[in-house]
């Protein structure tokens, strides 16, 4: 029975990490679908969310909710600024230049965070205490419930937004064909900017809700970012639900691998999965194959 309890424990923590990867993956997909860019600075928005909230909550003494809202706002503004200053001027550049630009931005944001907040690791207090709950013999922290709840909410909202609001539909139109979209009167520039804003907001939210469990520091963005990317690659860029499943799958694999095989190779699992998927099925497990136009 003990093994079973351990298993449920791994599964729970795996799923909650997986939910975070899925949220971060969403951010990648939104920008990629609008612009064709993989934003290497995505992980830095996640870091910004956590660090800003720690800053407002612990150092400025704000209550939790305003601290969170303010942090998401600032991260969103950072996302918009980044798009406006670095991405828009290079819209039609070759991928190699765009990759380098987003890497530059990611280093810059990380460096700025290190200068402002130092190199220490910070813990964000859990949203509703550290009293564990017992479900089916496994312990679960309230923070896990927050993570599941918020992830589900974000998924529902983004589905409603992209399928039923006029702006969301306009953004999808740009993703299919930017030129055609602009011909029917959609301002493509605004939509691209909006994709960066939404992506930064979701990323920072992910960073905030994970911070009480894993701690945060100026350099958490790299790993979280890459794992989010891994989630979206497993699921396929074109599939929203696929990203969620990809994230959960990755989280589970990591937790089980760390628990039953070796904790020190935990991070390697994500990258091996990433490479395997990229080699064998680059369109993702759930994505549709894209035809390439020349």
């Amino acid at each position: 029975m003990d093994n079973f309890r351990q298993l449920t424990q791994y599964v729970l923590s795996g799923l909650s990490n997986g939910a975070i990867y899925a949220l971060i993956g969403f951010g990648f997909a939104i920008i990629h679908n609008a612009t064709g860019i993989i934003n290497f600075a995505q992980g830095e928005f996640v870091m910004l969310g956590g660090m800003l909230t720690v800053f407002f909550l612990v150092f400025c003494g704000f209550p939790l909710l305003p601290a969170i809202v303010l942090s998401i706002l600032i991260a969103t503004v950072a996302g918009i600024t980044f798009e406006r200053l670095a991405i828009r001027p290079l819209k039609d550049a070759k991928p190699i230049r765009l990759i380098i630009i987003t890497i530059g931005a990611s280093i810059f944001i990380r460096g700025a965070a290190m200068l402002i907040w130092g190199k220490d690791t910070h813990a964000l207090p859990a949203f509703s205490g550290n009293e564990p709950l017992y479900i089916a013999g496994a312990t679960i922290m309230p923070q896990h419930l927050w993570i599941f709840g918020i992830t589900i909410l974000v998924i529902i909202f983004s589905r409603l937004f992209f399928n039923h609001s006029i702006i969301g539909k306009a953004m999808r139109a740009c993703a299919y064909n930017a030129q055609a979209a602009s011909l029917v009167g959609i301002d493509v520039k605004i939509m691209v900017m909006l994709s960066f804003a939404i992506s930064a907001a979701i990323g920072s939210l992910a960073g905030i809700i994970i911070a009480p469990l894993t701690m945060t520091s100026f350099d958490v963005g790299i790993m979280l970012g890459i794992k989010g990317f891994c989630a979206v690659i497993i699921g396929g860029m074109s599939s929203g639900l696929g990203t969620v499943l990809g994230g959960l799958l990755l989280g589970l694999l990591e937790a089980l691998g760390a628990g039953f095989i070796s904790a020190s190779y935990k991070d390697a699992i994500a990258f091996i999965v990433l490479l395997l998927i990229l080699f064998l099925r680059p369109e993702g497990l759930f994505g549709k194959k894209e035809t390439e136009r020349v």
Partner: protein
Amino acid sequence: MTKEKRQITIFLIFSFVLLVIPFSLRESYLLNVMVFIGIHTMLAVALNLLMGYAGQISLGHAAFFGMGAYISGIFTTRFGLDPWLVIIMAALCAAAIAFAMGFPILKLKGHYLAMATLGFGIIIYIIFNETVNWTGGPSGLSGIPNLKIGELVFDNDFHNYYLVWIITLGVMLLSINLSQSRIGRALRAVHDSEVAARVMGINAWVLKVQIFTVSAFISAMAGSLYAHTMTFVAPASFGFNFSVELVTMVVVGGLGSIYGSFLGAAILTTLPEFLRVFEDFDIIIYGLMLIVITMFMPGGLISGLQLLSQKFFLKFKAKADKGA
């Protein structure tokens, strides 16, 4: 002067200057910095073959550098093999891995290629950290012997300077030569338009794998030299950050320019020395440099220098014409 002659002259002047520098630099500290610039130049040139010539990015090149360093370190300290033999072995080994990885990895393009190479680099970095019995783990591997030829031991900066720079100059010469060859032209074609290149009968995939292999070979060689000159290696030198630093060197210097790689390596190696007063500022400055240069000077600093010298030359010429 024909283009070829001019290039030979430039290379000879460049080599001559570098080879007489140690006689004017008596200070060991500066020589030491120059040794690092040499190793970094070798790495930047290797990465430039891939990025500048073939237009393919790698965010995991520190892995090949690390493979060279660790293979040299492990086989000379634990098995007492001849260091020179191990250097060749290490380079061949890294090249073989690059060759095997190259086929699936270079099928990917653009952003996906960047992520895949990044993942590869981090897997190797984790292996360096976790195989403690072999690599010594995070605390590193020490006691790596210096290289020697007969009685000549490369155990001081003066000797290491020549060791590193003679090999670096060789690598630079080969790379310049490569760009003039059929392969170099084919690579440029792939860079500009892979589809067009394939239509012309170039096997772009195999070509990219080949250049990736050569690049890994050179990087591993640089790693071996690093291990033998430092006599100590630790995984922190071969992580993601260093891969990004290498990309920065290539971009700042100039994509596709071999002398640009030297310039980029020199700047990025000396920058932390200048910034020592403002500790921790280097990372933010790397980021800014990457953004600003990519946006406003896609040819890198070397193209800026060329433009400046051309302008200067034209002005000079105009004055001379007036005078006459």
